[in-house]
């Protein structure tokens, strides 16, 4: 790194201003023949989506109820976010890659599609994949391909797109769909319930440990559309599964809406680990374009001694609004939330979790690491609730913010609602900056500033990164570094 001879006095200022050469490498658009329905939302559109997917009557009913309820709701404005008006009539609610006849094997899948996912580092050809991982690839509104299905089926594990699940396992879907996140839950949950297109369905039968990581890769490709996927994971008694979610989108000047729902049900002594690396396009340095990410994620620890662990690394999206939550109903059930949320440039994030303690001796842990740079706004919002019946409930919350510029904001909104005297709830919070002393110390040892920031940030986020599955952890570390390139002097 041979640098300029002179080090201007407020070099950090300059570098912050010159930010975002950290390029978004997933910003390409694929030329795929896509069937997009006209923009706008109405009962007819809901019926059209349902018809396109050949859905049973009960599901159309579910959608219509949700739609009618959505009409009565207003956009939520309580988050620490500056959300521009979204014209819900200007969005197309369904886009699918046009195909000849439903491809049965990979040979029949459009090579353009395969190429798209290859460029994203996701191979759909099983022999080329990372061993120990099964992938469901979702492009715009539909699931394109799910790998390793047969192998998993031998153990009784169901891993398929939710559309297929509706056809092949209607009873299971009907039993659990909307059981954790009702369409009445919130504005975006109602919208998703009305128009959701695809997503993944996972069922792990009693006593089965899923032998590989299950993964869904979400990709928005078409312009002028939104993505409304829905994921449903059920872990029956004594089951275990680790599930990963990744997302990217092309670089565009317009904003695109992503409003997803994830529902998880964990039965007796079962355990679900859900990891996300969210890298939707974040918009450019001036805040043009980027994904609006409004997501409702919630898991119900229904069984005794069940466990649900959320780990998220949030680096993308222009606006992030998500609170992966745990309803701890079973006695001795455990909820965990580990989060790194990075915002740079004009990004805004309002994210956190809810831990609802209902069962006795339930435990929860929250570790949130916010990193803000540029002119971004980064808020942690969390609720720890202990109901009167939840004797012996225990929560530990650690909430740290790291500031990389003088122009960004970090905010913490912890809500604690304890209605049982035996509960123990702890909250710790810190705010820190990367100091010039730390950077100079690294520089003096020969470590250039960019790399120094990467080291320091990854050190700060280590506790959370350690929770990610190995394959993801390395990628996530690089992602942190790229997202923050040129953000500190």
């Amino acid at each position: 790194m041979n640098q300029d001879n002179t080090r201007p006095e407020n070099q950090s200022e300059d570098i912050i201003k010159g930010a975002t050469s950290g390029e978004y490498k997933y910003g390409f658009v694929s030329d795929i023949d896509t069937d997009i329905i006209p923009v706008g939302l109405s009962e007819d559109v809901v019926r059209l989506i349902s018809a396109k997917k050949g859905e049973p009557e009960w599901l159309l009913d579910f959608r219509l109820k949700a739609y009618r309820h959505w009409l009565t709701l207003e956009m939520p404005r309580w988050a620490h976010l500056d959300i521009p008006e979204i014209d819900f009539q200007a969005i197309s609610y369904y886009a699918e890659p046009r195909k000849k006849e439903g491809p049965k094997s990979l040979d029949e899948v459009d090579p353009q599609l395969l190429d798209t996912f290859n460029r994203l580092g996701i191979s759909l050809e099983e022999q080329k994949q990372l061993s120990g991982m099964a992938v469901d690839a979702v492009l715009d509104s539909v699931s394109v391909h799910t790998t390793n299905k047969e192998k998993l089926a031998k153990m009784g594990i169901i891993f398929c797109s939710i559309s297929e699940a509706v056809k092949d396992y209607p009873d299971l879907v009907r039993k659990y769909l909307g059981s954790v996140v009702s369409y009445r839950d919130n504005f975006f949950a109602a919208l998703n319930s009305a128009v959701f297109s695809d997503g993944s369905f996972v069922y792990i039968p009693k006593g089965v440990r899923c032998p590989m990581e299950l993964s869904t890769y979400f990709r928005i490709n078409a312009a002028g559309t939104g993505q409304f996927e829905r994921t449903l994971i059920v872990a029956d008694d004594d089951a275990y599964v680790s599930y990963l979610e990744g997302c990217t989108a092309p670089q565009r000047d317009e904003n695109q809406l992503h409003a997803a729902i994830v529902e998880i049900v964990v039965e007796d002594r079962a355990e679900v680990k859900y990891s996300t690396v969210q890298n939707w396009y974040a918009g450019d340095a001036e805040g043009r374009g980027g994904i609006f990410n409004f997501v409702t994620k919630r898991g119900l620890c229904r069984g005794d001694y069940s466990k649900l662990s959320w780990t998220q690394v949030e680096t993308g999206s222009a606006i992030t609004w998500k609170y992966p939550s745990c309803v701890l109903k079973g006695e001795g059930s455990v909820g965990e939330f580990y989060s790194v949320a990075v915002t740079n440039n004009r990004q805004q994030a309002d994210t956190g979790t809810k831990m609802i303690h209902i069962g006795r001796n339930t435990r929860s842990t929250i570790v949130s690491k916010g990193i803000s740079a540029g002119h971004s706004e980064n808020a942690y919002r969390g609720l720890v609730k202990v109901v009167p019946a939840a004797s012996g409930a225990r929560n530990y919350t650690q909430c740290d913010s790291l500031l990389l510029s003088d122009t960004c904001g970090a905010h913490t909104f912890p809500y604690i609602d304890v209605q049982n005297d035996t509960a123990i709830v702890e909250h710790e919070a810190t705010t820190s900056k990367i100091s010039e002393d730390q950077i100079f110390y690294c520089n003096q040892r020969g470590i250039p500033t960019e790399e120094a920031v990467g080291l320091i940030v990854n050190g700060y986020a280590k506790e959370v990164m350690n929770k990610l599955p190995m394959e993801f952890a390395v990628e996530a570390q690089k992602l942190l570094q790229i997202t923050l390139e040129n953000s500190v002097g």
Partner: protein
Amino acid sequence: MDNILLQVNDLRAGIDGKEILRGINLTVRPGEVHAIMGPNGSGKSTLSGVLAGNPAYTVNGGSVDFHGLDLLSLSPEDRSHEGLFLSFQYPVEIPGVSMVNFMRAAVNAKRKYFNEEPLSAGDFLKLMRQKRAIVELDNKLASRSVNEGFSGGEKKRNEIFQMAVLEPRLSILDETDSGLDIDALRIVASGVNKLKTDSNSTIVITHYQRLLDYIKPDFVHILYKGRIVYSGGPELALELEERGYDWIKEQVDNQQ
């Protein structure tokens, strides 16, 4: 310029618009140990900071030649690669970053600068093991975060350990003795002495004579009000120990 490692000519520098160094001249040859002593506020730490390229300081004039390179035009990391090492008076804590990762980044950055391949994990750990012994640091060091929770003595030993790994041509020890008990002082000094060769040089910046009992200087310079006002052999340090700095101050202040 034959056989001169560091040539400082009329160096002027300051911080926040205030001039602190008012024309420093200093010549260091390979194999030499120079002690720079002086009362508080004389500019000792500014000198080390300016030589290492700390952006907090502004250079107002003068030049520094470092084995044929214009030192002041190099970035701090390039000064490091070219063989300048600063042992910090207050080593900085970097939470969550293990010493192993930190040193690997440092070693590989230097190798990259010289167009060499990164060191393999095995070779790197071997190097860490060898160098650790020099300052009697235990192997738990590797997994601990940089300087976090280190005692004063451990921090200074850790500085000398890094110096051992990076094998600099010129080491500047900035008040390395401050905050050390006598045992830590002995370990640190013995580490520095073990690393001494005919081709590398050391500048020891200190307020007290104490450290110089262990690290024998060839030259002693007295810095006062931003200038080197007195230079001599090791005996000068002893004289300072006996008489304090006041006689120097008086002499200089009277001349002005």
